[in-house]
């Protein structure tokens, strides 16, 4: 017995859903989706659950994470009900829901709040710079320290609890029985998806998009590794320096293409971009570019006279680490991978 909640669509609209109420349940979206299978049929099921506002079912579902938004469903929807965008907004809704702090939801729903957060972090960085008297060495040192501490803190206090919450909603609460051995055996799934996004290959819109995405993930993770572990800005190892250059270049070059797409909004996937989507790609671009420039300025030995560049880089970095990673679109990267893992656990 299910009680329905028609008011749910108002809630979902705040997460960016468009017109999904128009659905007349023909199933065309499911049928054109190349990722949909007999055992895993979507997006119509999610559209229907959203129309009826069956929140428990939505929260326990992993299907929103199984969609990589090629946009075919929306292109061919006879009612122009935008199932693809609904899946996107469900991902935002779920992100907000998994987040114990509640900040994700607030920022998705309110652009003002997001801007305030960005301004506040910017102010904090400036304040810090003032406190150290704009001393480059100190700032560089702090920047490196910050990266490590932020990863650890955000990871343990926000991301990990949120993943646990996701696990609770999707596995524990629906009373799915999973043996410990299965947890162990299936763990490979998590890493494969995290690093390759293998599933997106199934999207038949274009393989190039997957490739770009793949390169970007590899580039981003390697850049993270290069800066945090190998201390790119501080190192003198030529190998590390060149590696950092390559990785940061990959990040900003690939993101340029993504940003262009968002701006043109021609393809289905980018027709209904939300601020959070734009922040994500723009900040990623800025991260890559400023990191590249910082190291370049270090190598050219002109960073000292261009401290503002590093302050800018640090601001981007701090905003990325404190806003976008824990409460923004970055989490999708994590949730998707875990969704694949959990799906594997649920299978059979």
């Amino acid at each position, binding site marked *: *017995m299910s009680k329905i909640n028609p008011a749910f669509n108002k809630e979902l609209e705040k997460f960016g859903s468009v017109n999904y109420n128009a659905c*007349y349940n023909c199933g065309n979206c499911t049928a054109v989706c190349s990722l949909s299978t007999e055992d895993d049929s979507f997006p119509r099921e999610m559209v229907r659950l959203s129309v009826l506002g069956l929140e428990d079912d939505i929260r326990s579902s992993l299907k929103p994470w199984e969609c990589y938004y090629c946009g075919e469903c929306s292109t061919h929807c006879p009612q122009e009900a935008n199932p693809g965008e609904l899946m996107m907004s469900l991902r935002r809704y779920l992100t907000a829901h998994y987040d114990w702090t509640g900040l994700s939801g607030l920022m998705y729903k309110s652009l003002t709040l997001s801007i305030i957060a960005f301004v506040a972090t910017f102010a904090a960085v400036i304040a810090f710079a003032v406190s150290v008297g704009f001393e480059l060495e100190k700032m560089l040192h702090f920047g490196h320290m910050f990266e490590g501490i932020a990863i650890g803190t955000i990871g343990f206090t926000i991301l990990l609890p949120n993943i646990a919450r996701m696990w609770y909603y999707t596995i524990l609460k629906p009373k799915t029985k999973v043996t410990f051995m299965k947890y162990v055996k299936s763990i490979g799934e998590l890493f494969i998806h995290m690093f390759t996004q293998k599933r997106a290959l199934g999207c038949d819109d274009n393989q190039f998009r997957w490739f770009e995405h793949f390169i970007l993930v590899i580039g981003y993770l390697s850049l993270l590794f290069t800066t945090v572990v190998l201390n790119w800005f501080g190192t003198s190892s030529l190998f590390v320096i060149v590696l950092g250059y390559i990785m940061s270049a990959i990040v900003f070059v690939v993101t340029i293409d993504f940003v262009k797409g968002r701006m043109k909004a021609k393809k289905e996937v980018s027709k209904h971009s939300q601020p959070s989507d734009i922040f994500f790609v723009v900040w990623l671009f800025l991260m890559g570019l400023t990191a590249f420039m910082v190291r370049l300025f270090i190598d050219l030995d002109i960073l000292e006279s261009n401290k503002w560049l590093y302050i800018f880089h640090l601001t981007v970095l701090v905003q990325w680490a404190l806003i976008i990673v824990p409460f923004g679109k970055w989490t999708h990267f994590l949730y998707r991978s875990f969704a694949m893992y959990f799906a594997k656990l649920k299978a059979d």
Partner: protein
Amino acid sequence: MEKKPKRIGVYVCHCGGNISDYVDVEKVRRSVEGEDAEIVVLAKTTMFACSDANQREMVEDIKANNLDSVIVSSCSPKLHMLTFRNVSVRADLNKFTYVHANIREQASWAHSDDKNGATEKAIHLVKAAIAKARYAEPLETNKIRAVKTVAVIGAGVAGMKAAISLAQKNTDVILIEKEPFVGGRVAQWDSLSTTTETGKEMVKRLYNELLKYDNITIMTNSEVIENKGSVGNISLKIKKTPRFINATACHPDDLKRAIEVCPVEVPDDFNFRLNSRKAIYKNYPSEYPQIPVIDVKNCTRCGECEKVCKAIDFNEKEEIFEIVAGSVLMATGFDSYTPAYGEFGYATSENVITLPQFKRLIDTQFDKLIYKGKEIKTIAYIYCVGSRQTDGENTYCSRNCCTSTIHAALTAKNKFKNITNYHFNRGLRTYGKQEILYADSLRSGDIYFQSYEDGLPKVSVEGAKTIVKVNDVLTNNREIEVEADLVVLVTGMVPRSDNSIGTLFKLPKGRDKFYNEVHMKLRPVETVIDGITIAGACQGPKNITESVNSALSAATKSYTILSRGELETDPLVATIDPEKCSWCGACEEACPFDAILKVENGKKVIAEINNTVCKGCGMCAPVCDPDAVNLIACSSREIMSMIDALV
């Protein structure tokens, strides 16, 4: 007596496989060609007997072979008997020499399971037709003068439109309405889909147009009680019930007061019994004709109204009018299905009403939707109540209710605040451009659930709440429960429960019990009774546009029948053999039309047939002991020779 043998031509139709797939048409052809070679001088098969090419060929054959009579063995005579009679006429044969054999509906289709049997039967049927053709003689048709007047029965939109259209064609119209007011169902609706005009405004517009034509006589509160004669000359007796109000002496304010003082309260049928009205009443202020009426059945004659209004006159008497019309156009409309006691909580739950009631409710409420003192926020609509029944008689789809419901739901949503609509349907049927309305409704947030006939929604009452449960096809058959303030049963269209007019005119009904046309595509507004056309929803569920289209079609047909001022009728009447007859009066007694006269022919008193009155039913034939009566074309010798051929 025997003249030279007739020359008969026989055509056996393939009907493009409809016949030839089951009946060996070539065998049929051979068997008639062989055995009756003397008289069957020509026997052919043809792909489509009714095609233009074959018709041309028939005309040539008749002339070239000097045929006296042709037989086409094809589909039911109801379809193409007239077609081939006309072919005979074009070849200068008398149309009554033509004989038709039905080897499709009564052979190939009926026995598609037995090809040999079907072929054998077809051979016999064709032989029987040959036997009949042997005696088929040229006959003169009776000519009658047609009265250029059409009686239109029912003054809903269909009847009103038909009347206007006929009047425009210089035809006299008598528009007869049983109710005291015109407008029918459309007058009951305010908002209509596809237009900004309300139903009442539309009725007003049509009524004002009616008044423009001198050749239209409007008779409200009137009923046809007798019907005599036939096409071209139909006499009708009309009973007009008085309004008991003298229209000329009527002052509107006085009448208003008269209504106020009337102590009688009866359920208001105009508002589908949602409220009550007085015994002297008008359904709505701008209703036509603009004179109230006293409902005699419920009036107690207390005299209160007379005290305040001079116009009231209880001395008015019922009047009987006799009119003559050339054709009758039926536009008697439909009833809304009344759910059975307890059907989806009808009559057992106080929050359950029907769609027409709901539409009246929205029209009569402002700002807030209140029903039985409670504000309504969530509404559940249950579709197909009384339509598409699997365990009831109404197996048909009522065509209109999906669109009508969605329109009502959207109207409620726009008129009142915070309305939530739940639609429990069995597959939406917003055909054509009406689909846009469905899309609009979805976009506005209305929620649809679907079930099949084996899982209809269930309505139950829990405290003040009415609960609707359904296994929703659209959500993997999951059981869904909805709380509703009001449940609206989407009742379909059913034939008028009072069918006295249909009985009076002997109108045949179809499987769905609505009046039946001769043929849905060939003669869609004509009935088997010559001169009687049907229009609007008395023929089956229709929306306003469709009703008006059929009304104008029927008007065209009635006009075509009468426009020439003269009509031909079949001369297939009874005949008396003066040798055998010695007047006993049995035939006179049997005749339902007073067509038998007692005459003296010089030698003795015998019976004689009045050809213009006789309708050729043959009731006089079996009662004649000396066997002096026969029907032309159905005489004993024809029937017996057909029996010979069929054995």
